[in-house]
């Protein structure tokens, strides 16, 4: 049986270098390009009719926009709509990375910890930036939970620092782990059904099919979690206590 981690291996396809930095094109990078192309195509096509009675694609796009708008309103309030393009792009990018990765033979970009880590760190840094920009130095008050008695401060501040630093970590690890685990299990089951042959192979195969549906759901849920947590962190920056 083939190594279940084999699908995560990358190979340089087009070697490239920018100022001494290795920026070679590999399968994951091609998947990113695909995601950008597909999302652009879908969303620009969705808006093209622009009529009051929406087409199917337009309805889906509007549903999506409303969904994200709802998230922002709930966590950040109406002011948060400034970040709508960022949040929506983030959701779409992650969602389509997750979904396209489910195609047989494709590569799941979000199963790379560096990719999810870069997103998480970027988003977290942005929330800190927004917080300091709005509240100035007072934003450090986020490390002091409201209603903490003075003698507990030496304990609470380190705990809060750890909580804060854990945010990007949990954000990136969650997405990476979910995507990786799902693909590993799918790969193992599919391998079993191939090697099982016709006689008993149908059992793991039906599991594979069921799990595939589950993975599609997880692709959505993980994209949703990443996005809503981004909104929550941004919201914390907006409304200090």
């Amino acid at each position, binding site marked *: 049986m083939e190594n279940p*981690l084999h699908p*995560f291996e990358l190979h340089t396809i087009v070697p490239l270098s920018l100022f001494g930095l290795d920026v070679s094109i590999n399968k994951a990078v091609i998947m990113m390009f695909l995601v950008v192309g597909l999302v652009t195509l879908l969303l620009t096509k969705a808006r093209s009719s622009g009529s009051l009675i929406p087409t199917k694609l*337009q309805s889906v796009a509007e549903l999506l926009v409303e969904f994200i708008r709802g998230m922002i309103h709930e966590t950040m309030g109406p002011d948060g709509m400034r970040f709508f393009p960022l949040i929506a792009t983030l959701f779409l990018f992650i969602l389509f990375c997750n979904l396209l990765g489910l195609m047989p033979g494709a590569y799941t970009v979000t199963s790379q910890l*560096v990719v999810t880590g870069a997103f998480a760190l970027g988003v977290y840094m942005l929330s800190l930036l927004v917080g300091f920009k709005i509240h100035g130095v007072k934003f450090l008050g986020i490390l002091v939970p409201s209603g903490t008695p003075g003698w507990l401060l030496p304990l609470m501040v380190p705990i809060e620092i750890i909580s804060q630093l854990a945010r990007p970590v949990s954000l990136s690890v969650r997405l990476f782990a979910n995507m990786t685990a799902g693909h590993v299990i799918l790969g193992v089951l599919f391998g079993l059904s191939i090697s099982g042959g016709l006689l008993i192979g149908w059992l793991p195969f039906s599991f594979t099919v069921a799990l595939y549906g589950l993975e599609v759901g997880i692709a959505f849920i993980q994209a949703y979690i990443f996005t809503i947590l981004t909104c929550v962190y941004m919201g914390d920056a907006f409304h200090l206590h």
Partner: protein
Amino acid sequence: MPQFDVHFFSSLIFWEFISFGILFWVLYKFAFPPILEALETRERKIRDSIEQAEQSRTTAEQRLAEYEAKLSGAAQEAEAIVAEAKAKAQRLLEENEQRLRTDSARIQAETTREIERERRKALQDIRNEAADLAVTVAEKVLERSLSEDDHRRLAREAVQAVAAGEAQK
């Protein structure tokens, strides 16, 4: 795990930011504004039509209330007219009755009075006649002229006799 192959990190992060940036820019510039706008336009339109519908409903309700009020007013008016007519008829009837009753009473009384008067007159006539007759008869019988006073006394006695006879009858 192959994901921790450091060799690919730089290119992955680089292209991640590039593609995310491109996608962000494209969607920000071309996709989101029209979709958000369409959404808001539709929401506004729906809100407007709901408001309009609500307005028409209240107008219709108001009209209905007005109409009903008018209708009930008309019914009341008709009722009042009928009642008035009835009352008038009743009044007329009573008035008529009253008048008839008084008239008949008056006529009756008048008739009675008339009869009484006639009777008295007749009586008086008879008395006078009788007195004259008695005087003549007495003159004739006695063949003598009595004094005026005798005449009168005799006449009165005759009359009283007649009257007494009359009363005894």
